């Protein structure tokens, strides 16, 4: 009486035995994340290597978890970090506090902070959960120079670099 049911079950097992497995061999193998995935933050640079962050603290004020701490300082032409007047001298995110809501990304006027696709966050202590600017910032792109840069006077005169509208501004995903 139960034999039919058992046989049915075994057929399913047999079929799955020859199909492709759904699991991946993490961490050797990683599954790609979705386009709108919100992973660890990245501080972006322009192509010439200057930092996009202008140290405005708007991310910190938008943060519902109070995870971000920013301290600004003034750029000079001898020591230039960002194209504007001001840069983030200290930029810290407490990843233990962060809820990965992405409000910081929305608040950023220069698209400097972007939630990337790195989800591998683990720490041995509370203190090491605080990521500082060196840990968050992107590597210098090819052809660019690292910050601080010494630049010609008069090259960067605006308080905030002129921003182009982001390409996907009018077309939602």
């Amino acid at each position: 009486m139960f034999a039919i049911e058992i046989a049915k079950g075994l057929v399913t097992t047999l079929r799955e035995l020859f199909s492709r497995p759904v699991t991946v061999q993490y961490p050797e193998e990683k599954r790609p994340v979705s386009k709108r995935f919100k992973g660890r933050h990245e501080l972006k640079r322009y192509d010439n290597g200057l930092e996009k962050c202008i140290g405005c603290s708007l991310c910190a004020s938008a943060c519902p978890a109070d995870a971000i701490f920013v301290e600004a300082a003034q750029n000079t032409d001898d020591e230039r970090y960002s194209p504007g007047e001001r840069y983030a001298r200290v930029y810290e995110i407490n990843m233990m506090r962060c809820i990965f809501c992405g409000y910081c990304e929305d608040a950023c006027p220069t698209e400097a902070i972007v939630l990337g696709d790195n989800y591998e966050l683990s720490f041995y202590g509370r203190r090491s959960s605080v990521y500082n600017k060196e840990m968050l910032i992107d590597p210098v792109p090819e052809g660019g120079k690292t910050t601080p840069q010494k630049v010609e006077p008069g090259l960067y005169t605006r308080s905030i670099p002129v921003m182009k509208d982001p390409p996907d501004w009018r077309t939602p995903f």
Partner: protein
Amino acid sequence: MTKPVTLTMDGVQIEVPAGTLIVNAAKMAGVDIPVFCYHPKMEPVGMCRMCLVEIGRPVIDRATGEKVLEEDGSPKIQFSPKLELACATPVSEGMVVLNKSENAKRGRKDILEFLLTSHPLDCPICDKGGECPLQDLTMGFGPGVSRYLYDEKKHLAKQYPLGELIMLDRERCIQCGRCVRFQDIYAEDPVIAFTHRGRSMEIVSYSDPGFDSYWSGNTTDICPVGALTTMDFRFRARPWELRAAASLCTHCAVGCNLTLNVRREAVSGGEWVVKRVMPRQNEEVNEIWICDKGRFGYHYAAQNPERLRQPLVRKNGELEPASWKEALDLIAERFEQAGQGLLTLAGGRLANEDLFNLGKLTKGLGGKTVLYSHMGGGKLTSRVGLTPGSNLIDLGAGSGDEPPDAVLVVGCDLEEEAPLWWLRVRQAARRGAKLIVLNPRRTKLDNSASYVLRYPFGNAAMAVLAMVNALSQKQPDLPESVQALSRDPDLQAAAKAFAEARNALVIYGSEGMGLVESSALAQACANLLLTTNHVGRPNNGLICAWPHANEQGAWELGWEPDENLVESLKQAEALYIAGADPVSDDAAYQPSFGSDKFVVVQDLYLSQTARLADVVLPVQSWIEREGSYTSGERRVQRFYPALPATTALPPKAEAPGVRAASVLTRSAPELEGPQADYAIPALIAERLKIEALNYSNAAVVFAQIGETIPVFAGLTFQKLAEVHEQWPIVGRGDMYYGGTTYENTQGLGVQLKLAAPDAGQPPLAWPQVVDFKLPSLGMMAFPVTRLYDQGSTLMRTELLHQRIGEPYVVLNGSDAGRLKIADGGKVRITFSNTEQSTIVQVRLDNELPERVVLVPRSYGLFISGPTPVEIRQAN
């Protein structure tokens, strides 16, 4: 008083005094009319057009003069066809103001759109962002999108420093002219102005150094955009990240109310730091203004690696770190041995609580207390000084048949000695009060004075006595020079105006005077007030422009300076010096610190005096603790802790991002790190078992003062913390109206009652004055006060170094010519009494009498009073 006028504001009927501007009437009724160029402290100009409202007035029948009525019996209202300015239109009877109508809203929206055509989108990095009227009003009334093209925006100079204190961003300026008007009307330093026209109009500074004014910081408060910002706060924090603590300014006797904005700072090891100093409204003290010394000169009190952090005890000739227990035990033992030989010298920067406890300890041992000051006359200021209810803002022309008020400023360069009083006295003169300036040389206050009188250097008391003499001829045995002075018709007219005034007060300073001379001057001023009966009523009496914040308080608590301090220091067996650094001021004190003398110094830094001490104790600065000061107007005010006390050891320099959990180690059971000035004498007293002094809490100490000192009777910290509504209403959500000044929510202070007269010391005594004449040979140096000096409290503000400059003396041109010295040249000045000799710069002033040398105090030159000097070319 003026008759009240009834008008309807947004459907609500309100009653305001006649002549009130609509914008202020609205404020009184709790209706916000947005403004940019209007400021409640200044006359309207109507430059920004932001306050447009619809105004209707009752229709009057020309034939009968009666109001035309509607069918339902209400008065017929006719609205003007266009929007009108609320800031420049006074209210009238029956007026109807529509602030929320569609028309008014549209007007505002259009004005904002227009202002934003050229305003850069700098908000994310602008120091004003977050407390910016333009930002707020754009959010409230502005258009959501701009119709103007980004590429066609007007571009002007950005990052344009107006001197080293103020940064200008010309693109952000909306041309309201508040700063220019403030500098003209209040500061009397018209060093900034508009140039060009229309969209090219921009602010320029004409002075060298740029924006050369003691008041420049106030323009950043009232600037409705981020065009003017201070260099001190540049990019140091966003306004919304700051915490605010109510405090007081310690730099002079005015007692300006401050708000200290603090925040944790990663580059300071995660410690709390003061980010900026802002004014706090107190219409009876500083209104909404503060001078630049108060605004920028706070760095000395902040956490600083040079601060003393633990007690030092001299062992084998060297000062070495020790525990509090060791230091206090040693002090108790040695003070007990010294007994009556103890001399406690305290500076006027100490709070009431500190002076009270120090006094109690010293009196308990039978020792002597001395106030360290170059000014005297505090007994008189507490007996014929200001009484409760006094407010310089009430001084003016007098209403109706009443005569105008009078202010006599004598021997005082008021803007240098007490800047806010200068500002307020000048405003009183502008309102119609008779201002009499009696000074040996030209000062800025002369420009506003009704009577400018001069006396020869050294004859200040004489000149005031001449005024008394001019009023009554009761003192015939005066020196001939006084008799001569009192025959001067200008002086007679001034004396008459003073005597007839509704209210009259005297402010005396220390221009060219030391302790002896200023005490005599105080007595002469008291005589003038008593003979003209200007005592015991509000806004009448004697004010001293003390050099420190709490010298009036020290006098009220029984502290007095000593005319022969050098000798007293020599005779003392033990010295207890708190909040004073006599050795830096005058090397003549150095020999008083003999090796057999036990010297205790408590201070913020290892001062010159502390280097000679046997025990040095670290104290908390005023921003780290609680307490109260008594201002020169006899107002007791309270200050609150803004920062946690400096820790025992300097915080470890750590990589940013890795902050130590120092909180866990801070609350050690043993006494550690700097202590409050009032706690240390109490801890010593505890060991000596002489009297139970409180060391835990300033409030308790102040309550003890209230119980024991008659003039403080009934006062407690709670009383000092009381507030009442002030006009204009500023510092709330409506920063467009009054600026970024903070509202006063933590105490306006209480003015003291007059002290009862001492038995056997009549206030009306004839002062001992000598007929001072310049020596016929040689030069005579007179001390003068300069606001920016090289004192240890200001030199830690590096921003001001350029303004402070190097040590200098002022000479007459012909003296300089005789000595072959050019303006800006160097001379060697030798003081005859101390044989001190220094090379200094020379500045020339041809209005100065010959053979007179002006020496600024606290500029590294040791001068206490008029001193003969020798001047030679330096080579």
